[in-house]
């Protein structure tokens, strides 16, 4: 039996942060690789661009089984932009290969995973 690759998708949600403020959650599903990283990048960039003040951004990787170096680069770029604007960037639901890759690269401490 050959399993199909789960379809890639990016969904934007809003939720209440712990401090009562609203934060944007980017829910990603599927492999974040060379083919799909552009979708993630434009979704995240769009949220950062349209934020009027400091943005609290959460990227949810609970449904992401694989993230390559292109994906890490987008996450790192997003976190640097959000931090630069005085906001916060948090990764959530990281497990499996992405978790190991983030640990290996030392990005886990930078990206707040």
């Amino acid at each position, binding site marked *: *039996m*050959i*399993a199909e*690759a789960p379809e890639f998708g990016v969904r934007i949600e809003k939720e209440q942060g712990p401090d009562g403020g609203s934060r944007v959650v980017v829910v990603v599903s599927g492999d974040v690789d*060379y083919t799909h990283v552009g979708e993630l990048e434009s979704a995240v960039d769009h949220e950062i661009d349209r934020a009027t003040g400091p943005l609290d951004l959460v990227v949810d990787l609970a449904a992401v*089984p*694989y993230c*390559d*170096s*292109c994906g*890490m*680069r*987008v996450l*790192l*770029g997003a976190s*640097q932009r959000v931090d630069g604007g005085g906001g916060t960037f948090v990764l959530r639901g990281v497990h499996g*290969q992405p978790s190991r*890759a983030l640990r*290996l*690269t*030392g*990005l886990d401490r*930078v990206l707040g995973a």
Partner: protein
Amino acid sequence: MLTAADSLGHVDSTMPAGAPSPTPPRGMRSLHSRVLAGLSEAVVVTGPARPGGAYTIVHAANTAAERLLPGITAGLAVERVPHDAFRSAVAQQLPGFEAEVAGRVLVARAERLDDDVPPGADLLTCWYLRDVTDERRGSASLQRAQARAGFLAESGRALHGVLNLERTLRTAASLAAGFLAPTVLVLLADGSDAVRWARADAGRPRPHAGEMTRVELRAAPRLHEALVEEAPVDPWVSLELAELPVWNERPTGRIVVVPVPGTVVRGVLVLVEPADDEDVVPLAEEYATRVGTALSAAALFREQAHLGHVLQASLEPPPLPDDTRGAVVVGSAYRPARESLRVGGDFYEVLPRTAVGRTPFLLGDVCGKGIEAAVLSGRVRQSLHALRLVEQDPTTLLGLLNAALLDAADLDAAVTMPRFATMVLGDAEPLPDGGLRLRLATGGHPPPFVVRADGTVEEVDVVGSLVGALRDAEFSGTEVLLAPGETCLIYSDGVTEARGGPGGRDFYGEERLAAALSGCAGAPAQVVCERVVQLLSDWLAGRDHDDVALLALQAPPRPRPDRSRPDRPSPRPRPRPGHPPREAS
């Protein structure tokens, strides 16, 4: 039965059935001649002069018929009608005929008025004539227009598939030879010092091609101007052209010169003795536009292919040094991702032994693909080459490299996204006991594996942040001692993240890699790499994968005194049942 009178819509009850009526009653005759006269179509009726007679006359001919066949008139014997085609068509009872009369093209159709006529009865034949001169002329010009459109479409297809400058030039000459003119010459300036040309002669199988230097073109200053500047084609150019050493026979007839426009290259299209047709020049100009587009595309493609080739060559792992003076045995494997247009992001190198007796090595992976990845991996390698001149400690080197890459990125206005690399670097130093001491540092890269002599596989305990992205990056180093025959394998994540297996979606993973390596204990470094690639390719079963790079460093095995051929180690790794547990993870 139908008679001449019937055919006009009257039934003449006085006529005997089956008999032709060469002379209808007077009133009737005047009626049908009046009806005929009013028709715009030319009509002629022929038939025997009297029933059963062999003598055929024209029974009726209307005004339109008299205009098309001057001299024809009712009552005239057919043999005296002054038109050969008409006479022979009547005599042979042809179904129709076509003739040119006084510069007009006529088409005639015969209609035998034979319904219900008993066999053998004498018949009238009605000839309907049409002047098709204008129609034919129109369709001839339509055909020419279609031929031109077909020529342009066909040449567009033929030219655009080529993408090779010389071949496009030859194709441009061949396609036009015989259509635009018997001999066609195309000259092309592509910014280089030479002007290329191709000439095709209709009926000759192969076009001729060659090059002229600018010096040779001094004799043709106007042509030179038209080729290298935006100068319009001067009428004198055709005189200069006739003198160029590009002809089989020096042209003496009319020469038409049309510029070949192009964004990258410029040229001229030269037609020798084209048909004396007003359409030739506009058609040649249209053709020249297509030629110019195709030549520019070919020129661009040539540049790009050259760029790609240079880039690819610069990224391909350099050959490992042949001579490490027996200090280190190295093996390597590189399998770029299948998408050939994406230049890969993995790189590795082993440098010649330094003055202090250490052999530096490196295996890395830059984020991204294509040109960007190529530039970054070039920058990483060159920075390291320079930094190694002043610093040899791997951990310190990584820190310096990190700072150098970040500084370079700060200077680079085009960089909006972080660029980084992961890598393992270090050097190897032979020990007096025949072993090898490796100094290793990693920046965000999967830790290497060590394959011990007894088949134990260890993951080297070393971590560090990725390189070139973070100012506060932390790197650490470690030392690994290899006994003779033991191997350290550095690999890129394309190995462990290769997806395949029975379900097609499982990662190859560190566990399987370690298991594979434990079966390779004692195998030569190159064999270890090839074995891993082989197992990986089984795992992938033809699926796509990312770049895969492997670099194996091995302490030279001890020669075995009891073997008859001590220098030849076993080419196959020893298979092992299961694999011993890894010591570190």
